[in-house]
């Protein structure tokens, strides 16, 4: 199944790494790890797709093959009709890439200097550049940051700066690897709003990996779940919830005790994990956490606590549980 009309198409794509492990001082063992194990999908122009899965599932490896950073070990892969690894430089003009953990901006220089470099590097005509920059500055709230050296920006400001930098050359595809990681609520909302607008108005195709379920809920109509290098689910987000709702959705109460204790027992919750003095208690998402908190506080030496909403890992984990 090769769909060359699609903007992005993968057909049986594989990536195998040789991993050398030292077993003893002299002997080394060579092992093959299939990071991506035969993935096929197609993304049409203008789609906004979430690409999710647990750590080490092969998400980043796929993105890196789609951007030409890594060479696939097998299968066929096309982005805008280009074979990424073969024509990396030509592909670069057609794609924008944002790595959440890494910046492409010039650390010691004002933000606008990095944009000037992008203009020259991508040979963007000045009028087009001004227009694109103005739009990004306006919508990502960058006006006051343009003259600030990048090293002085906060994480959220820098992320917004990076997203703008990836879009000044009008890419057909925007890849975002964890675009909201570590951002505060306001920055997250700003980034999401901007991406939605970008997709609606300019028809930019967006492929994003994330750990944040809300990113997907608010942005993507289509979700792909990958695990152990294989595509486990490809469809609407609603379907994913259905697939995962074999067990009822659960929230987690994380409690820090004064000292290490045996798993504590509280009615209405069960301990799912213990790590030193910290314990994780799962309870049904529909239930209030308040009675649980007071029960724990009454009986155990409680230092601190927090409540975690169900995230993608949970949804996926239950999806597997429901399948078995």
């Amino acid at each position, binding site marked *: 199944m090769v769909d060359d009309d699609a903007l992005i198409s993968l057909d049986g794509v594989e990536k195998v790494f040789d991993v050398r492990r030292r077993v003893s001082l002299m002997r080394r063992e060579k092992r093959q790890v299939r990071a991506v194990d035969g993935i096929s999908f197609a993304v049409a122009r203008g789609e906004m797709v979430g690409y999710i899965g647990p*750590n080490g599932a092969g998400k*980043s490896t796929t993105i890196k093959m789609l951007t030409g950073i890594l*060479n696939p070990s097998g299968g066929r892969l096309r982005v805008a009709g280009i074979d990424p690894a073969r024509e990396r430089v030509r592909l670069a003009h*057609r794609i924008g890439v944002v790595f959440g953990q*890494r910046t492409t901006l010039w650390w010691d220089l004002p933000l606008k200097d990095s944009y000037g470099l992008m203009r020259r590097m991508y040979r963007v005509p000045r009028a087009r550049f001004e227009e694109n920059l103005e739009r990004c500055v306006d919508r990502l709230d960058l006006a006051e940051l343009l003259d600030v050296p990048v090293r002085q920006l906060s994480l959220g400001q820098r992320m917004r700066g990076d997203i703008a930098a990836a879009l000044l050359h009008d890419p057909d595809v925007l890849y975002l690897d964890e675009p909201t990681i570590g951002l505060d609520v306001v920055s997250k909302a700003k980034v999401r709003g901007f991406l939605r607008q970008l997709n609606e108005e300019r028809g930019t195709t967006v492929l994003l990996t994330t750990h944040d379920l809300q990113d997907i809920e608010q942005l993507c109509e289509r979700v792909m779940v990958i695990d152990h290098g294989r595509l486990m689910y490809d469809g609407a987000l609603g379907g994913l919830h259905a697939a995962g709702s074999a067990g009822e959705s659960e929230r987690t109460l994380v409690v820090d005790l004064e000292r290490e204790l045996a798993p504590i027992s509280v009615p209405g919750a069960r301990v799912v994990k213990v790590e030193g003095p910290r314990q994780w208690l799962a309870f049904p998402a529909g239930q209030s956490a308040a009675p649980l908190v007071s029960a724990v506080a009454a009986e155990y030496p409680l230092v601190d606590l927090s409540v975690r909403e169900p995230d993608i890992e949970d949804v996926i984990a239950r999806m597997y549980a429901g399948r078995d």
Partner: protein
Amino acid sequence: MAEATGTAGTAGTAAATAGPAETRPAREFTDPEAPRAHGRVLEGLRGYGLIVAMWIRSTMTYRTSFVLSTVGNAAITLLDFVAISIMFSHVDVLGGFTLPEIALLYGSCSASLGLADLLLGNTDRIGARIRDGSLDTMLVRPVPLLAQVAADRFALRRLGRVVQGLGVLGWALWSLEVDWTAGKVLLVPVMVLSGAAIFAAVMVAGAAFQFVAGDAAEVQNSFTYGGCTMLQYPPTVFATELLRGVTFIVPLAFVNWLPALYLLGRPDPLGLPGWAAFLSPLVAFVVFVPASLAWRAGVRSYRSTGS
């Protein structure tokens, strides 16, 4: 297959223009053709220049630090030569060479290495870039990777070494009584530039090796900085096996030994004919072939980091 891709690409673009015209502007500014070989070199040089300019501006934000480190750089390399001069206050000749003759060797290789170091000395940082994954961000830019790696953290302060090397070289040529011919005059700039090119090729090969061997910056440094330390002394003080190695395997002898011997009218200890002195540019060109092949193989084997 290339044909098929070409058609697919055109179909994609046609689909794009079929959409609302205002929201999806035509992309007249990206080159639809894959760049030709010489086009790639030009693109690389252009990208190199752009990135170098950014690094110079970055350094200039710390002006005092820049001035101090430039002066410091020149002073440190000059101390090298002071050490050699002090040695000559105790002996008159070393391996049959006088102080101005040694200065010729010292100045030429220092200028060559300085030039290579200035232009692409930070290629040895690629190991760190590979380990922390920041090479990924370079790989998604429309500039050949080698140009970006060469320009990485470009440091104008390294000009200090070039100036110092040329200074010592100038002094040597002034104090020596060279029997000047047109060939010998031409040989001086050819020697410095070819020497820089040979060191550059070694740096590229070393960088390529780091794709395989994690942090191998020291291997590369032993050939560049170590090689230059060796080339400061006359070839007559070294064992024949070493001379063979640096003539025929890693051809560092062509950086300055062979041209300098010709300038001084001395025979090559390995018995190579005088015209071998003029082979340096050719040697530089030839060593770039395995270096660039190694580089390509390295990039293809790049594995990136976990996330």
